Structures are given as C-alpha cells and as structure tokens.
C-alpha cells in the first residue's frame, strides 16, 4: 500500500529528521510505501483546502488550519493500540475533534503545541540598566520598560508582535476579553476595547511602531522575527516555535530569553496554538495511515522530536532533555514549559471554533486601518463588531446548508 504524507516546517533539519523517521517506518513495515512530500507553508494554506474539499490530496499531512480538521478520518478502528495512543496524547486529542464527531475519535496527533509569550533582548535590558519584566507584569508594564530600554540604547522598535490575530488574542484574554458568547462570535467587548485602545496608543507613541502592523494590508501574516534577531527590537511577542530558529539566527550577537506572558485582569494568558499530523477521510488506505500515525505519535519518536527541536508535543513527555547548549534557548524553554498549565479552556475553544480565523483576519485588517489612521477608535470598534456579526450570519447559513 502506498500513502502520501505531506509535511511542512520552517526548520529544514526537522524535515530531514522526519524523512528519516519515515524511512525507518517503511523499513519496519515492508508492506507500506510512504510518499514523503515536503511542501511550503503557503501551499498548505492555499492548496490543501481546495484539494480536500474535492476529496483529493495527501492521505496524511501536517496541518495548521483548524478548519481542515473536519476532513480528518477516525483512525481508532485501524489502530493496534488506540487506547495506549489516546492515553499518551491525552487531552490534546480533544483539539483534533470537531463538533459532532465521535467523542473518542482519533484523527491523528498534535504535533506541536505552541504558546505565545514575549521574547526580550536581554543584552539591551542590561545595557539600559532596566530590569527584565518580572512574572506578573502587565502588558503596559512590559511595554513601558521596553520603551525605556529603547530610549537608552537607541533601538528603534521597543515592542512588536507578529501581524496575526492569533498573536493579538493572548493579551486580549488577559485583559478579560471574550470572543464567544452562546456560540456566537462577539468581538470586541469592553475589555477588548481597552486592549485595542492601548495598542493604538502605543502605536501612536512609537512604543509599538506603526510600521509593524501598518505597512501591510489585508489579513496578510507578517513575521517580525528577523527584526528581533537583528537586534532592532526590545520585546517581541511570539512563541516557542521561534526558539530553535533564534539559536541559529542570533548566535552570540546578544542574549535573549522568553519571559512569562503579560498579565491582566483575567490572569496571565499564554495563547495556545497547535499543529496537527492527521489522516484524511478520503484515504484509501486507512490502515496504513493509522500505522504511520501510531508510529510517529509513539512516545519514543515524540520524545526524540521534542528534545531535538525544542518542541512542546501533544504527547506527554516527562522530563525532556533539550539538546541545545544555548543558555538563552534553555531559559526560554523553561519559560514556556512553566506556562503550559496556564492556558485557559476558553483560549483552546476559540482556536477550534469555526469563524475564529475570520475574526482574527478582521482584527488584523481593522487594527491596521486604525493604526494608519484610516479608522478612528470608535469606527474600528464598530467595524470589528460588524465583521463578527457578518461572520455569525454566514456561519449560520453554513450550518443550515450542512443539515
């Protein structure tokens, strides 16, 4: 039997390792041939949905978009040891299940869990003589400290985050905002408005330079990692997937670390995200797919990956020994690891909700307009609310059509 496995990652070493793992799997399962496919991120975003909607595409793939989860197959009947697998991956399997599917469905496994937390340029803080923000610092405190550092060291960007609704969401939760109420998207509520007003204020004062979100349009994702790696940024809100790239990119140019997520009225929320390795319904060889997933999701493989690439896997790996000699990376990973437990259920729910991406898109779009001055604060609130309402209407139609 032949199955296709589409895999994409930013880290070429990760891809190479994955390929090796697949080779091993093939060696152990002579009756199965795995077509290992590497694809770009854009490809996964644009091509897979189209293909899946017409029942085409790879049998197994690593995906990031939650709206593709509805195409996943239930592998439980084809697995050798579904219960062991479920036990190892625990609650993370929940993330793969879409509403209306079997409560014990195993569609694959969570390849990585991500948490959004700020990175800081430690060297700059040291040079400015400003202490690193302590645990429990609010976003305002973090930004203020960053501004001080920037002033003292002449760096241009005190604070930034990737141009992404997902990145935006973590602090929003800590401000006490809600995205969902009674299954309806509601955004922005009063807490969200306060957060938006703060961001706007910072963008105008230069604490969160306009260019970061403004010099782009639409819902386009824009990564600020290079700016941080080049030493232009004091504090950068990103996530654990950046640790590995930073080790290489920053080298010994300066010291850096991740710090705890900013706190607010509703706590200190590290926004969670996930990538999944799943099998799709249209596969003609569900058994082979199940075997591959079982192999890749096994404790041994997951531990190897986690330790080598500093990844927080969905599988529960105890005491991972991260293989890096970078003190910056180690301290960062610790910062992430100690916050896994702080993820509120609501943050996980919104990730899986249909329409969340639409709201994220609308946030990016409207925030940019606000920042470059196309909208006033009030107008931005109104537009966001209208967008959410529109999404609710369309989703209702979709639900109706599905029935």
């Amino acid at each position, binding site marked *: 039997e032949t199955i296709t496995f589409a895999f994409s990652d930013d880290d070429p070493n990760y891809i190479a390792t994955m390929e090796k793992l697949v080779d091993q799997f093939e060696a152990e399962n002579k009756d199965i041939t795995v077509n290992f496919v590497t694809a770009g991120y854009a490809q996964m975003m644009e091509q897979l949905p189209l293909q899946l909607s017409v029942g085409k595409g790879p049998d197994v793939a690593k995906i990031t978009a939650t709206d593709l989860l509805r195409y996943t197959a239930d592998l439980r009947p084809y697995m050798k040891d579904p219960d062991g697998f479920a036990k190892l991956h625990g609650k993370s399997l929940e993330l793969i299940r879409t509403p209306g599917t079997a409560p014990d469905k195993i569609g694959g496994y969570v390849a990585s869990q991500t948490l959004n937390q700020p990175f800081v340029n430690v060297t700059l803080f040291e040079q400015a003589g400003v202490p690193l923000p302590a645990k429990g610092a609010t976003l305002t405190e973090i930004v203020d400290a960053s501004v001080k550092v920037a002033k003292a060291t002449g760096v241009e960007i005190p604070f930034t985050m990737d141009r992404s609704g997902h990145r935006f969401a973590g602090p929003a939760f800590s401000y006490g905002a809600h995205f969902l109420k009674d299954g309806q998207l509601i955004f922005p509520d009063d807490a969200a408005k306060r957060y938006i007003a703060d961001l706007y204020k910072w963008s105008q004062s230069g604490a969160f330079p306009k260019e970061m979100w403004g*010099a782009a349009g*639409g819902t*386009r994702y824009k990564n600020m990692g290079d700016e941080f790696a080049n030493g232009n940024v004091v504090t950068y809100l990103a996530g654990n997937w950046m640790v590995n790239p930073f080790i290489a990119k920053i080298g010994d140019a300066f010291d850096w670390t991740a710090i705890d997520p900013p706190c607010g009225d509703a706590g200190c929320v590290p926004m969670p995200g996930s990538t999944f390795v799943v099998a799709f319904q249209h596969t003609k060889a569900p058994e082979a797919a199940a075997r591959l997933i079982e192999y890749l999701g096994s404790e041994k493989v997951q531990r190897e990956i986690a330790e080598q690439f500093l990844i927080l896997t969905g599988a529960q790996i105890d005491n991972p020994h991260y293989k890096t000699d970078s003190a910056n990376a180690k301290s960062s990973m610790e910062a992430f690891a100690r916050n896994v437990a702080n993820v509120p259920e609501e943050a996980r729910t919104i990730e899986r909700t249909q329409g969340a991406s639409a709201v994220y898109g609308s946030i990016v779009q409207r925030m940019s307009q606000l920042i470059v001055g196309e909208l006033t604060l009030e107008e931005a609130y109104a537009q966001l609310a209208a967008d959410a309402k529109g999404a609710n209407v*369309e989703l209702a139609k979709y639900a109706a059509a599905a029935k």
Partner: protein
Amino acid sequence: MRVVEMPMAALQRLLGAARMPYVFILPNMVLFTIFVFVPVGLAIAYAFTGGTNLLIWDRPFVGLENFKALLDCGSYLTPSTCRYNLFWTAVHNTWWYTLLNTLGTLFFALVTALVLNRLTRGRGFFRAVFFYPVLLSPVVVGLIWQWFLAREGLLNSFLMEWFDTRIIFLLEVAWSRIWVVYVSIWFHMGFFMLIILAGLQAIPRDIYEAAEIDGTSQWRQFWCLTLPLLMPNLLVVTVLLLIRSVQVFDEAWVLTNGGGPGTANTFIVQFIYQTAFSPDLRLYGLASAASVLMGIALLLLTLSQLWLAKKAQV
C-alpha cells in the same frame, strides 16, 4: 510531420476544404472551453450561491443576494457606509490606481517611444533595456522593489546619506500609493512603449518632410501629425492598460504586503482573492459576484473606449 499530414489530408477529402477551418480551430476551442469557458460559467453560477462550501452542488441558491450585499451602500462615494466597505474601498482604490497608472504609463511610454524613435544610435539597446522588466514575474518585481524601498533598503540609505532622514515608504499612504503606481509603470512601461514605437515608425517619413516644406513648427508637427497618426496605437495601449489596471493584483500585493498600509492599496482582485481564499470563512459566492461585477465594469469601460475612439474618428 508526414504523420499528421496524411490524416489531415484524408480528413480534408472526407469533409471538403470548406470545413477545414473548423478542424483547425477545434483543438484550441476544446481546451478553451474546458479550461476557460466552463470555469467562467461556473464562477458566474457561484455568484448566485451562498454558504462556505466549495463544491457548487453543495451550495444553496441565493439569487441576487450576493450582488445586493455588495451593492448595499449608504453612499457609493463613502466606502465606510457600505456593508462590504472593504469592497468599496477596493473599488475606490482601483479607480484611482487605474486613472494614475493609465495616464502615467501612457505618458512615460509615449515620451520614451518618442525619445527612442529619435535616437539614431543605440535604439536597439535602449529598447531592450526598457523592455526587460516586462519579462520578470510579478512576484519578483514586488520583492525586488520591497527590498529596494524597505526601511533599511537602498533608497533609504541614500536618503540617510544626503538628507539624514528616512521614510518608511510603505507605511505612508501617499507614498505607498505613489510607489505602487510607479512600480507598475516600471514593470509594464516597456511593453506599451514598444507598441507606440511601432506606431511611430509606421508613420511615413515623407509626411514629416511635407510638413517641413509646409513650414510646420515641431510643436505643431507633434500635435497635428504625430499624435493623430498615433491614435490607433494609443487606443490599443489605453484599452490594454485599462484592462490590466483594473485587474491589478500580484505585484502590488507582494510589494505592499497584502495591500497596505491599512487598505491604501487594496484592490478589487485582492478583495476577491481574500474573500474566496480566506481560511475558515470562504465567501466564494460573494467573491464570484464581485468578479462578475468587475467583468461587467471592464466590458463597459472597454466598449466605451472603442465607442469614443470611433466617434472621434468620424
């Protein structure tokens, strides 16, 4: 070729020479039908359906609802009063872009063609140079210029050197619009320049000699001879420019990181693309409706162009 010639000759004996044109046009038409007409038909059909499902047979028929939604507007001049204000912002942006790009390209292409027509030496070289950007892919053009205009790009390093200041070009609304137009002129000018140059070279030299004998000033030669005789070429150029301008997408999208700052460079095709391909909520019906509206507008624009030209000629 024998292999093809024999059956074709047999076909001709079978059908008669009069039916051979159909044989010649058939393969092209078949592919055209399959890969263009059918999808266009489907796209039009989509415009009348709703929901987020991609498969057309899974989509509910909604009549004119998508069109109504798009056209639901307080005032078409103020996009923020519209239900889909992004669409109308895009319409406004496209309109301005089309105007500036058409006029700008026309101007630069005309002047360059006049200059090259004048040069007695080096014409081939300059013609090649000006045409070269046409060969690049839009993505490459967008990337090169983004790289050139970046905060730490070459242009800013000159500004720093000379004026001790720098401009984040793609953050300022006015600058970014200017650059988008500039880059498309840079990109496409050579193509239109060639068409105009061909027109210039087709004007018989002796007409200018006759004009010189008639004592015509150079200025008058330009206005009374060159420009009117160039009209057919200028018309073609204008129509092509209009069509392309309204369809602007790739290079502007890459250059401005998706139409920024804010919505300053969000154009209609981007709206369509974004609406159809946004994760999670693919409003394909709405996107199709927008394309249909755009197609109609283009058709009207082109026809009115041709009509005006015809009227001017009589």
